[in-house]
């Protein structure tokens, strides 16, 4: 990995703050990184559509960013999701450092780039094998809207690759 870093103007926003003020500093983070994970969690907690769609959801998910020609090491983004909010978010390059999630959404780095740039639909990405989902299908099939909102939220993070 080229090394995580945060590019920002002005003071850093608090992790997990709800909502982003219009005069808030524009924050940009490299994907994948700890800074990106925190920004993502903030954006997710500010996403009213996700809050609505995920209001009955309980369970953690890990985004697995698999190494490819542009990323030399796997990266893991753990999200503890509960009733439409992200209660905790952690980033690691070692999966065993993170709690065991109920779900994993995994794909190569290049596909994550396309997803964040909205060049891949998150569900079509699964159906065409660009991403893999591990976990109980029975439960998640009732929360496809929430899952879509989660992935759509990645596009709202100012991301550097």
């Amino acid at each position, binding site marked *: 990995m080229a090394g995580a870093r945060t590019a920002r103007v002005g003071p850093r926003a608090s992790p997990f703050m709800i909502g982003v003020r219009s005069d808030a500093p524009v924050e940009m983070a490299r994907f994948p990184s700890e800074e990106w994970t925190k920004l993502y969690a903030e954006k997710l907690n500010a996403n009213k*559509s996700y809050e*609505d*769609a995920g209001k009955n959801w309980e369970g953690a998910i890990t985004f697995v960013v698999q190494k490819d020609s542009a990323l030399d090491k796997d990266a893991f983004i753990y999200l503890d999701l509960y009733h439409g909010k992200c209660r905790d978010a952690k980033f690691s390059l070692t999966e065993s450092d993170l709690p065991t999630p109920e779900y994993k959404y995994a794909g190569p780095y290049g596909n994550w780039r396309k997803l964040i740039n909205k060049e891949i*639909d998150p569900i*079509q990405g699964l159906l065409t094998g660009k991403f893999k989902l591990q976990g109980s*299908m029975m439960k998640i*099939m009732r929360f*496809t*809207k929430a899952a*879509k909102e989660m992935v759509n939220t990645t596009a709202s993070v100012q991301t550097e690759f």
Partner: protein
Amino acid sequence: MWFFRSPQVVFGDEALSYLSSLPIRRAAIITDRYLLGTELPERVRGALPEGAESLAVGDVSAEPPLSEMTAHLEKVRGFSPDWFVAAGGGSSIDTAKILFALYERPDLTVYDITPLVQLGLRTKSRLIAVPTTSGTGSECTWAAVLSEENEKRKHELASPEILPDYAILDPSLVVSLPPEQTRNTAADAVAHAVEAYGSTWHNPFSDAMAEKALELISENIEGVMRDPGGLGPRGQVHIGASMAGLSFSNSQIGLVHALGHSLGATFKLPHGKAVGLLLPYVVDFNYDACPERYDRLNLLIPPKYRGRRLSDSLRSLLGMMGVARSVRDAGVEESAYASSMDTLVTLASESTGMVTNPKDSGSEDLRNIFIKAFDGD
């Protein structure tokens, strides 16, 4: 990257006779409870290759619950079929898809039937669908709906591997369809075409199917309602309904089905009745998200039904067919509806149809559409 998936489609006069050309030795014939006493099972048996043995699983109820599957599956396993022949409405075909999957893979549960799991079917048997209604499109789709009686929920199961190998569209099998089923299933087919066309996953293949389906159904359904025994219009609507099935199977359903599954499960309304009445309200809701596409579809509806907007035209067409204009017209009692509103919204919001609808919607949007649809315009 995306796909266009379709069974081999056999259509037209005497299409059922095609069964005799297939290498069938042991056929499990899955059919509706009410069709068991008709000539249908015998016609299917008679069309099988000479010497083929058959087992009729003839007690499939409308929109069958999960609990029915266990008994059906035991019968099927005891018979060891090499082909499943689903002959009936959408419930029979959906049941056959589920039995086929669980017979092929005894280690699976119905909840494993998702597009995200490689099932590895077709090691022992194959699947043929012979629809006796014109509307569900199940013969051409990789989806199956299963009721959950205790939860008043409909599970939307899907896997490309449960797509039938063959769809046999024989118009002689639908000429005796009663008027109410003709109306409800045709309304369902219209909803499939419109939802597929508006879907965020629409593509040139699904568009072509949706356009032709709407054209065939809207041009011929009046003739079917007037002269139910007329093979010509029946055959056109039958083909149109399967094309509508191909359209949504290759692009996905939307909010009409999300709301319709919820309404149907909660108040035991037939599926086509529920989606038919909701369709114009959802089209109104969606219009500003895809005006060009809806305007284009509107031009395919015959001038005698065509209004300024697609929703006007659909109200006119569905009205001619006798589809209820509101939830109240469909026989739902107001106080029961009001007290079920939270359940209706929750069930709808958990449908996969929420994901591909052209306009993003939240719980309040769903609630507003349900409220508006109660008394109608």
